[in-house]
């Protein structure tokens, strides 16, 4: 077993354990942190799968930005009493949930196992090994190098990229609209009106 595979196993075990703990944890802040731990292991796995750009995007966007937002919402809006609502009210929810999950996992694994795609023997025969794939004369041509990724992104995938940008803009506006506190804004508006009225009165008095 070489170092990379060992690292993969450590990351995978820590990652799955933290995912399980995220689901089972009673404390929402702990849940958020377990999810962060899971994302950090994914960062490591992406590096091992020679996808450095994906790894840092995961690191900055998911582990850095999105999870801080989650933490903020959980810390700000979830009172400690909220914890007891986290428990499923219907006892059988646990049972059926677990049952359905196990069934789904079985189906996924069976399909993975039976498909020749991930069959190891075929891989080693027909496919180039990783060592071959990684060694390009030019580092920019290696798998996952940001330059190659960028060239591909802005040529062949330009339209999806533009649409994603539009979607982000729409989400930005939507988030502001949904989370805006209309009541306090009304109050501010009212205060502004009062100020104007007072000024008018003051002017009249002076006149």
């Amino acid at each position, binding site marked *: 077993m070489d170092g990379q595979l060992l690292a993969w196993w450590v990351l995978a075990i820590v990652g799955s354990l933290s995912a399980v703990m995220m689901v089972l944890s009673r404390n929402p802040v702990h849940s958020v942190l377990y999810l962060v731990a899971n994302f950090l292991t994914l960062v490591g796995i992406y590096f091992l*799968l020679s996808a450095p750009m*994906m790894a840092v995007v995961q690191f900055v*966007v998911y582990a850095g930005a999105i999870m801080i937002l989650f933490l903020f919402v959980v810390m700000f809006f979830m009172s400690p009493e909220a914890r007891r609502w986290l428990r499923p009210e219907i006892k059988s929810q646990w049972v059926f949930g677990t049952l359905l999950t196990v069934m789904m996992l079985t189906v996924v*694994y069976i399909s993975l196992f039976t498909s020749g795609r991930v069959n190891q023997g075929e891989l080693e025969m027909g496919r180039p090994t990783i060592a071959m*794939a990684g060694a390009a004369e030019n580092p920019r041509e290696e798998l996952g190098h940001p330059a190659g990724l960028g060239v*591909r992104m802005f040529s062949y995938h330009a339209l999806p990229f533009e649409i*994603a940008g539009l979607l982000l803009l729409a989400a930005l506006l939507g988030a502001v609209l949904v989370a805006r506190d209309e009541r306090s804004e009304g109050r501010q508006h009212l205060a502004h009106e009062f100020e104007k009225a007072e000024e008018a009165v003051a002017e009249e008095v002076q006149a």
Partner: protein
Amino acid sequence: MIDMVVNSVWLAGLMFAIGTLGVMIHRHPVIIFMCIELMLNAANLALVAFNRHHFSPAWRTMDGQIYAFLIIVIAAAEVAVGLAIIVALFKHRTRVDIDEINFLKR
């Protein structure tokens, strides 16, 4: 080395299942939302692993990673809107339970 790619796909399946479990047994919208994020990440892991699998000197494609990248962008947008909705819910009600969020029905 090739083990790593194959194992990553298995791991992605496992993570997806854990996310599903969380969605099904939890009743708080924030936690459910986090489980959905986990499922999205499992899909991303599978995409990156398959990209690694299909990358060869003859065919240097990085499309899998680009798909994963776009998924992250969309997930970020989704989180912004979703959390905004949850915050709005918290403002209107003290107790937030996914079973009771059915205003549209009433």
